[in-house]
Structure formats: structure tokens, C-alpha cells
């Protein structure tokens, strides 16, 4: 059994601080630290802005045994700066004559309750791994990302039992360098809470926020109506 020792977390959230992507990736990283892994993290939206950041990104990927990418879902795909980071990594690695073959997993969390809405973005991650000559271990589609809201996954209430189990199984798969077991997909196949309940709560939250800002009558503004 090959044990990967160094894992690189690529944070695809636009937020450099607390975010659901960081919470999800951070949970997996925490489990890997318990298994003796060294870890490093990069905030992709910051890294792609400068030449120095882009070079650091490439060097960090080349030095990693395992890549963990966690990103929010943006319009059925990854956010533009996250895609830019993948383009940079892919172009670099396609030019290497004898690249390393790090393992990769991706976590995509969506504000919609249905996990399946993240599957297209995960398919993009899978093709990136193939093009970049990485070993694709699998992807985790996470629905109801708004429930996490940037908090540590263990602190979320109601408790995200199935998600935590899926993340634990993911950490184990990384340690053993095996594809994610089918159980991960099963655990994540349903919304964390009923979709209609999630939507009602989220809807209420947005309406309360605009009311608090004195914009109640402008929620459905149409500034670009023809």
C-alpha cells in the first residue's frame, strides 16, 4: 500500500476567510493530519492574481502527493478564478515530460439542496485530473451548502451526520489511495434536509435581510428590463 504523505488543499472559494469550501476541505485535512499527513493550503482566487502566486501554485501542486479541491458551485460550474487555476496547472503539467501523479479529490458545494446539481462541476474536475495526469479518486457533490455557512462541519446543527461520514470515508480513501467507495455517493445522494424545507428557510433569510436593509420592495427589482 502506498501512503501519500503531503496533501495540498486548493480552496476554490472567493472568500479567503471562513467559507463552506474551507470548512469542508478543512475537515478532510484534519482527518489526514490525524493520519500523519503534512498539509498545505492555497487560496486559488488570491494565487491566480499575480505571477508569484501562479508560480507558487504550480510548485505546490508539483510537490504534493494528494490534491484536495473544494469549491462552491457557480452557475453549474466552478468560479472563474478556480477554473483559471486549473487552466494554469493543466497547461504546466501537460508540458512536463515525467510528471508526478498526485491523487485528487474534489468537493463542490452548492446553495441548492440537491447534491446532483454539482455533478457537472465535478465532471469538469475529473477531466482536469485526467488532462493533468493526476489520479482521480472521485468527487463529492454537497447540497445545501448554505447550512454550513462557513462554520466547522462538526458544529452545524442539525448535525450533518451523513456528510461527516462521507468526509471520513473520503479521508480513509485518500490515506489508502483508493477511489472513493460507492457509499460516499450514497450518503450524499439526498439533500441534508428536505429540499422544500431548506428552500423555505433560505428564502425567508433573503427576505428578512432585504427587509432589514430597508429594501423590501426592491427584492425583485428589474434594472435591466427592456
Amino acid at each position, binding site marked *: 500500500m502506498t501512503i501519500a504523505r503531503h496533501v495540498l488543499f486548493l480552496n476554490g*472559494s*472567493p*472568500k479567503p476567510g471562513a467559507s463552506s469550501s474551507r470548512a469542508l476541505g478543512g475537515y478532510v485535512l484534519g482527518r489526514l493530519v490525524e493520519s500523519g499527513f503534512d498539509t498545505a493550503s492555497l487560496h486559488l*482566487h488570491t494565487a491566480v492574481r499575480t505571477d508569484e502566486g501562479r508560480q507558487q501554485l504550480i510548485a505546490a501542486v508539483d510537490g504534493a502527493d494528494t490534491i484536495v479541491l473544494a469549491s*462552491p458551485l*457557480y*452557475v*453549474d*460550474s*466552478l*468560479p*472563474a*478564478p478556480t*477554473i*483559471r487555476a*486549473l*487552466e494554469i496547472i*493543466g497547461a504546466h503539467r501537460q508540458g512536463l515530460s515525467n510528471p508526478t501523479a498526485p491523487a485528487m479529490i474534489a468537493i463542490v458545494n452548492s446553495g*441548492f*439542496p*440537491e447534491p*446532483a*446539481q454539482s455533478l*457537472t*462541476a465535478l*465532471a*469538469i*474536475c475529473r*477531466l*482536469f485530473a*485526467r*488532462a493533468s495526469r493526476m489520479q482521480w479518486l472521485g468527487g463529492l457533490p454537497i447540497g445545501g451548502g448554505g447550512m454550513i455557512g462557513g462554520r466547522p462541519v462538526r458544529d452545524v446543527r442539525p448535525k450533518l451526520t451523513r456528510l461527516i461520514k462521507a468526509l471520513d470515508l473520503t479521508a480513509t480513501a485518500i490515506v489508502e489511495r483508493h477511489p472513493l467507495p460507492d457509499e460516499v455517493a450514497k450518503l450524499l445522494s439526498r439533500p441534508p434536509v428536505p*429540499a*422544500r424545507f*431548506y*428552500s*423555505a428557510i*433560505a*428564502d425567508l433569510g*433573503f*427576505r428578512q*435581510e*432585504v427587509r432589514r*436593509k430597508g*429594501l423590501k420592495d*426592491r*427584492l*425583485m*427589482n*428589474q*434594472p*435591466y*428590463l*427592456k
Partner: protein
Amino acid sequence: MQIAWLDGLRDADPAAAMTRAAIERDIAARGWNVERFALPELDIAPCAGDFKCWTDHPGTCVIQDANRDIARAMMHADVLLMSTAITFGGYSSELKKAVDHLVQNISPRFTRVGGETHHVPRYPSYPHLVVVGTIADPDEDSYVIFNTLVTRNAINMYAPSARAIVVHETEPEARVAAAIADAFSQAGAAA
């Protein structure tokens, strides 16, 4: 007919010049009006994911750059045309930097569409969607993902119709022109 064209093709992308020329010829032949955004030349700040276009000034992104012009052009168009190099099956970062901001044109409220949760439309109608992706080599995985992505975008953008066209680097120009003409004819007939 009014077209908003989000042109994410870089000159160095596969089949970029041929694809762009075929699009321009077809639009000119039809006499349609086009507002083209050459995205690689535009400095558009990334979507910050702060939802301020939903909660602080609903319908408008807080960032004052070309993203607002693009969002306006989309809502004034009959057809939203997007062109991109296919990148790992999806859109390139050049196109995506504009697409990410289009959420200002929908509302934060939730509804059910086709058994799934989606946002409530902000406007009474939305443009038809045509997306042209270019790729160096034929790749079945990329086609499937690209087609799925365009279909998914059409649901979230409330496009009355959607068409994905894939152009290979080695494809005969006449076939590219025919595919684009067919997509525009369908969108034009439906608009």
C-alpha cells in the same frame, strides 16, 4: 433581432478565428444587431459570492465594471450567444468571468423547476441561449460535459431554448458555418 455575444475566445484558442468569422458572417447576413463583448480584453473582477446583487441593490452587481453592461445586454437580447474554448469539458475562465455575474439577472428566491430547486426569475422573459465551444481534438467526455453544462445553464437562466455547438480545430469551415446557421435559425424562429 438583438444578439448579446459574450466572446470568450482567445486568438490562440483552437479554431478561434474560423469560429468567430463564421458567427460574424451569419449575423451580418441576417441583418441582426449584435453587441459583442471581447472578454479577454475586458478587465472584469471575479464574482465575490457576497450576494449583494440580491440583497444590497437587487438586480445589480456591486462591482462597477463591464459585468453590468453584459448583464444589461443579456436582458435586452433575443439571443445570448457565448463562445469559448472548451476547458476540461466546461467554459474557459475568460467566458466564465462574465457568466458568474449573470446571477444578478435572477432573484434569490427559490422555486421548483423540473423537480429541482432553482431561483425565481427576476424578469418576465430571457433570451435564447447558443453556446459555441471550440476544442483541439475530438473528445467524447468533453462533448457530454459541455452539452450538459449548456443544458443546465439554460434551466438556471430561463432560456426558452438552448443549443450547444462544438467546433474541432480540423473541422471544415462549411460545417461550422452550417451548424451556427442552424442554431441561429432555430433561435430566430422561436424568438
